[in-house]
Every structure is written in C-alpha cells, then in structure tokens.
C-alpha cells in the first residue's frame, strides 16, 4: 500500500515538473537583434536587478524570495533566445508578463545578460576609474556634476560614455534623481539637476552620491558630497504632546479629569455629609434624652 502511494506521489511530481509551457512555433523563431555590447549588458543587468532579482536571486540561480527557476542552469540556457523572450513577455503562474512594462530591446538586453552570466569570460575585464562628484548653484538651480577619469601613464584621462547614477540618501535607502541614463560627455563630465523640495536633516543637510554600477566596462565606484541644499526637517510632535484620550495618563484631557475627579469629590462629600449628619442626630438625641 505504502509503495503504491509512493509511486503515485512520484508520478504526480514527474507529471507536474513536465507540465509544458507551450510556446507558439513562430515565437521561437524570433531573432535577437540586440548586439551583446557592454552598453546593452549594462541595461540588461540593471533591469535584471530591478525586476528579476527579487524572485530569481542575485546570482539568477533561483534562490530569491520566491521559489523560482534557475536561469543559469542548462534547462534555460539551452533554450533559444526567442523562447526565453516569449516566456519573459507573456509570463505564466507566478512569472509576471513583462511585455507591458519592458520594451522589446530591453527584454533582449536581459536575455543577453543571462547568456553572459554563464559565460563571464566573453566580456573584457572591467576597468578601474576615478569618480569625483561636485555641487554648484543656488536656489532652484542647483546641480551636481560627476567627473570620470582613468589613470593614464602620465596624467588622468577623461572617460566619456560612462553611465552615472545620482542618489540622495534617505531613511531606508538611496533615492535616484537625474535622467534614466546619464552618460558622461567627451570631457568626462555629466551633470544632473538637484530636485527641489528635498527634505534634509535639522539643518537641511543632504548627502548626495554618484555611482557607477551594473557596468560591464568599469568597476563599481562611488563618490559622495554633503550639501546644505535641502529643507530642514520639521518634526511635528504637537498631536503627541497635546492632551488627548489616547495620550498617556499625565496628558489626560482636562474635561475628563474634571468629570472623573468631580464624581469622586461628589461621592466623598456625600459620605462626609452623611457622617456629619449622623453626629448631628446623635447630639440631637442627647438633647431629647435630657
């Protein structure tokens, strides 16, 4: 009996794992027209980190927050680009359909990135560069400028075409500002406007970061500056300090204190009145006895 149950269990598991994801014939014929370049890989990596990593894991091995397929296993890597494209675009069960929020070339960039994951030697090694962040301007016209340089033989050489991400430090993370892509120009510089209405600390001080990340050409680099550009934080404890029904005992509302203590006072006065009257009656009784 146990054996039969076990066999049924095995059969169910096998059938379930073989539940096919039917791919239309024309979908698998779709050609990947995005070349594998460091630039497109950077796009693929940043999309992967934003959209895929949470379930499939940082290393794409299926060890994310959800039970998910390994993307570096042969089971996926042996599939055609067109098939993977179809799967990302349409989704199935827990896999969301990404066709509505990702452009076609972005999906191809992600596929290219997945291919590189199992074949990391096919891209040239990342270079070390120096990143310098500076801030200028006043009022609503404040901007930060990042400068990227590579150490040459005799002097620093400016690096064009490097994507820089600008961030402001917040309570639980870094808030991005600037454009989606901020590539350095021929002078090795790129600027971004500092957004208005940002709240800093008590003095309005904010920490601004510039980062080179998700890049296949350059190693991860960060620089930061501290500027008094934000609005001072306004801590409003008024409601907390006010007398209210939900406040602690020492901040009970006045009317509540009056009513409650009034009742107690009234009862005590009544008791005292009764006792006084008892004594009066006793006195009176002495008079009558005489």
């Amino acid at each position: 009996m146990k054996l039969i149950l076990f066999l049924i269990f095995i059969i169910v598991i096998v059938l379930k794992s073989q539940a096919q994801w039917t791919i239309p014939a024309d979908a698998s014929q779709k050609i990947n027209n995005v070349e594998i370049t460091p630039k497109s890989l950077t796009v693929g990596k940043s999309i992967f980190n934003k959209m895929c990593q949470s379930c499939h894991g940082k290393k794409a091995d299926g060890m994310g927050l959800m039970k998910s397929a390994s993307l570096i296993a042969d089971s996926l890597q042996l599939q055609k680009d067109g098939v993977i494209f179809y799967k990302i675009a349409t989704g199935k069960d827990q896999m969301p359909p990404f066709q509505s929020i990702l452009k076609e070339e972005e999906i191809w960039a992600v596929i290219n990135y997945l291919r590189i994951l199992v074949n990391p030697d096919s891209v040239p090694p990342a270079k070390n560069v120096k990143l310098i962040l500076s801030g200028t301007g006043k009022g609503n016209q404040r901007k930060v400028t990042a400068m990227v340089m590579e150490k040459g033989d005799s002097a620093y050489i400016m690096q064009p075409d490097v994507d820089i991400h600008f961030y402001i430090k917040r309570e639980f993370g870094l808030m991005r500002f600037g454009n989606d892509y901020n590539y350095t120009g021929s002078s090795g510089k790129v600027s971004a406007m500092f957004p208005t209405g940002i709240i800093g600390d008590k003095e309005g001080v904010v920490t601004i970061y510039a980062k080179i990340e998700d890049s296949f050409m350059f190693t991860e680099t960060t620089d930061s500056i501290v500027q008094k550009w934000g609005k001072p934080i306004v801590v409003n404890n008024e409601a907390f300090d006010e007398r209210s029904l939900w406040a602690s005992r020492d901040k009970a509302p006045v009317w509540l204190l009056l009513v409650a203590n009034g009742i107690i006072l009234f009862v005590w006065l009544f008791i005292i009145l009764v006792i006084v009257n008892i004594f009066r009656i006793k006195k009176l009784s002495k008079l009558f006895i005489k």
Partner: protein
Amino acid sequence: MENKNSENKKKNSRREFLQKLGLVGMSAFVGQSILSSCNNDKATVTGKKIKVLNQNHQLVEVDASSVTPIAIDETTDYLQKQGREGLEGKKFALVVDLSKCKNARKCMDTCQSVHQLRPEQHHLNVLLMKDNEHTASYYMPKHCQHCDNPPCVKVCPVEATFKRKDGIVLIDNERCIGCRFCIAACPYSARSFNWYEPKDAELYADVPYDIEKNVPQRKGTVTKCTFSADCLREGKLPYCVSACPNSVYYFGNIYEDSVTNGTSGETVVLSKLLAENAGYRLMEDLGTAPSVYYLPPKDRTLIPVDESSKS
C-alpha cells in the same frame, strides 16, 4: 517467567553487542582525546545539543560547544524604556501597492515566525477582496494601521497599549490584563488574542521581553503588529516589507517625505507616489488617521491574466 526466558535467550547476543559498542565507544573516546590533545582549540564537542534560531528564523540544533554564552544584561528595563519612548525625529508610514500583490504570503510567513504567532494569529493578513459579482477580485494585505487617533489606545484601562512619538502603536504584554477592549474597539480588526500558549513558548522561556517585538508572547494577552519597531531601531526595513517578492510594500519616514520599496530598494517621494497613484487610507470617515496608505489595484499588468480574471 516467560519474560526471564526470553531475557536469557537474548542475553548472549545483547552482552556481545554491548561489548562491541563499548569497544567502539572506547576507541572513539581515545581517538578523540588524542585529537583534542593535538588541537589547541579549547572547544570540545560535548555532545550536548542546544536549540537555536538562525537568521532565517529556523530552529536548528547545534552542539553546546559551538555556542558562546554572552553576558546578558540582568536588568532589561532599558527594553521597556526605549520601547515606550520611540525613535526621535521620525514618523513611519507604510504604503501598500495593491496592484502588485499576488498573494505570495511571504510577508505573513515571516511575520508569524518572527513574532511567535500560531497559524491562525495574524499581525498581518492578506485578504481576498471582491466587492461585488461584477468587479474583479484583488488581494489586500492588512496590517495594524498605526492610527494617529487610535481607538484601541483610548479604551485600554491599564495603559498597556500606547502610541509612541514615531507613530507606532505598541502593546506591552507585561501590563495587558487580557480584557480585549482594544480588540473590540479596533475598526480594522488588526489585533489578535493569545487564547493558548504561544507557539514555541518553551524556546522563548528565558528570552527577556522586548516590547518592540512583543516577544516572548504571553498567554492571555493581546498581540498586534509592531511595524517591526525592533528593525527600525537598527535602521532596517520591517520584516514583512523586506520579505515581499512582488514590490508591494513601501516604507519610510513621513517627516522626510520618502518611502523605500522593500523588494527593489527603490526610494521615492511619498507625497508624489500618493498623488500620482491616488493613494488612500482605510475608513477615513472614522477619523482614525491611519499611517498605512493603499495604492488602488489598477493596472495589474504584472499579474498573469488567468490570475486576475479568477473570481
């Protein structure tokens, strides 16, 4: 008699077995003592097992020798004091994006394992909502709303439940008398009661009571969502927020007007997020002023078609 006979029959084999076992044990002991004498490492395997919770909140058995006892602060008054005061200069808000919730329930699982809750007890519950037969269903995670005008705190006769400066409503189960007035007063049904001994009660027997985590739980007291105040003290996002695989939760500081997504780490301006997505709060008409905001379940593009059409 019969017993004795069978004993006699087995005697030889058992004696033999015990002898062999003794030999094996002896050699193992000798080998081990030689090994340990070669080794400068003081820790020897005692064989005594100790149950510990690892960082994934799983119960594992480790050898007593690999656990270093630390000096525990005898007075745990500071836990009470810091728990009552809250974090200075901060006020927390949670934003729940209903358009992204796919009922993965990772938030619930994490919450229940961290807060020592039985499966039927919820600090946070994911509900299937369907307003009428013509509209599509959606999932709604429901926490304590950490109201700025909390009805539950008003009715507590012993000041066991209270609101802190940072906006968090907590319960102190050392004061709670189990009257359940707060459960009756809460319009969001956010609280639950420990009717039975809490889960894994014996494991937490020696743990000092942390009011910010409400652990160890106590039978006969009320328990509720704490906004993971213990995590916030360390500058981390709440347990549920960082466990979500679907980018449903944003959490942040209202004073700073910023919230951070627990899944993607993306940080956005709170007021802009609420304005652009028509954020709302539950039962606004009651005047409870919750700290939890919802973004409507529209544009559910990331939810597979078969899932969203399910009724």
